[in-house]
């Protein structure tokens, strides 16, 4: 079972591996791009991280399964017949 699952996984670094790779192997042209990008983009008056900061943030993001599931309950989902009936009981 686990072999099958592993076989289905894509090749590529995990977040942690990618993090260390990004820190040690940033190509010069990318460094220049990052250094040149201290301007935030803005939408709705909410600023975003600069390119440089965004790359740091992604590298330090909570790894994979330590993140959460957000389950959408019936309370959010809207008025749906059978569930409405249940709630009325």
């Amino acid at each position, binding site marked *: 079972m686990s072999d*099958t*699952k592993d076989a*289905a*996984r*894509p090749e*590529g*670094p*995990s*977040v942690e591996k*990618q993090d260390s790779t*990004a820190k040690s192997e940033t*190509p010069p042209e*990318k460094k220049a*791009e990052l250094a040149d990008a201290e301007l935030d*983009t803005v*939408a*709705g*008056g*909410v*600023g*975003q*991280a600069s*390119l440089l900061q*965004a*790359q740091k*943030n*992604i*590298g330090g*993001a*909570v*790894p*994979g*399964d*330590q*993140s*959460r*599931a*957000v*389950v*959408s*309950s*019936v*309370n*959010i*989902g*809207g*008025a*749906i*017949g*059978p*569930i*409405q009936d*249940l*709630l009325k009981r």
Partner: protein
Amino acid sequence: MLPLLERDYVDYNVDMVALFALGTRPAPAARFDAYRKALLRLQPRPFPFGPESPHHLLGFDVADLVARECLELLFDGRGAVEGSGVSSDEGVREISQLVREAEHLLEAYSGSAASVLRLLIGSILFARLPVEDVLGSSHGALLGTIWINPMAGWKAVDYAEMILHEGVHQSLFLDEKVNTLFTRPPREMETDDCLVLSPSLAQPRPYDLAYHSTVVVTALHDFYVALGLPRPPRVEGNLGRLPDALAGLRRRADLLTDHGERILRFLEGEFRSLRGAAVPDPAT
């Protein structure tokens, strides 16, 4: 409308993930494909994005190992994946048709939001979990894929609402990765002093989950107001809990980064304007 549903805003976030994972910022026409490739590199498990499908892949076949693994994560221990697939051709056709109609509704709501949803949601897994209180989910470790638990009697607007709902979660998870919203990891926001009323579940939840819920509820209200549709009763109930939820989030704003706090401020402003918006009476 929420910046999280603004195309320019989300494009930037997607580009940052692609730049980090692939080393180059994608051209606009290649953005979806670059995001898919970046997620395949960054996430701990594959997902049922089809390279042949630039937008929605309707994954009904839970016998597929990738879809199965995704569903196990998205069910979050609430039930078995076995037997949950929408197996009949008739069921698949019906859902496909309703999803197409839902996409038209989302386009009518906002062209920007609709394109954001197409960009962020590569796969919708429709699977029926025999529980009455769960309509779907997203997971922070599985960007690009959502699960929807289709209910009997759903109309196109219900599918549109669910796609929007999960899309907002997706955009928030992405925003957390790129811009960061919280100052503490999820597990540290589960303690009693970090609990805040969730407007959707009507009970105290960990700070980040209450934040997610508040953003989603705000977006859903905007959706119904913009389309001039009556808000379903429970959505209306969620609106009634928004003031307490916003106050709770504000009380512990120390758990937010500057960016997270700016989003909260935006929500507070949206709530003030939503409260004054004229909407049709659901009873009429």
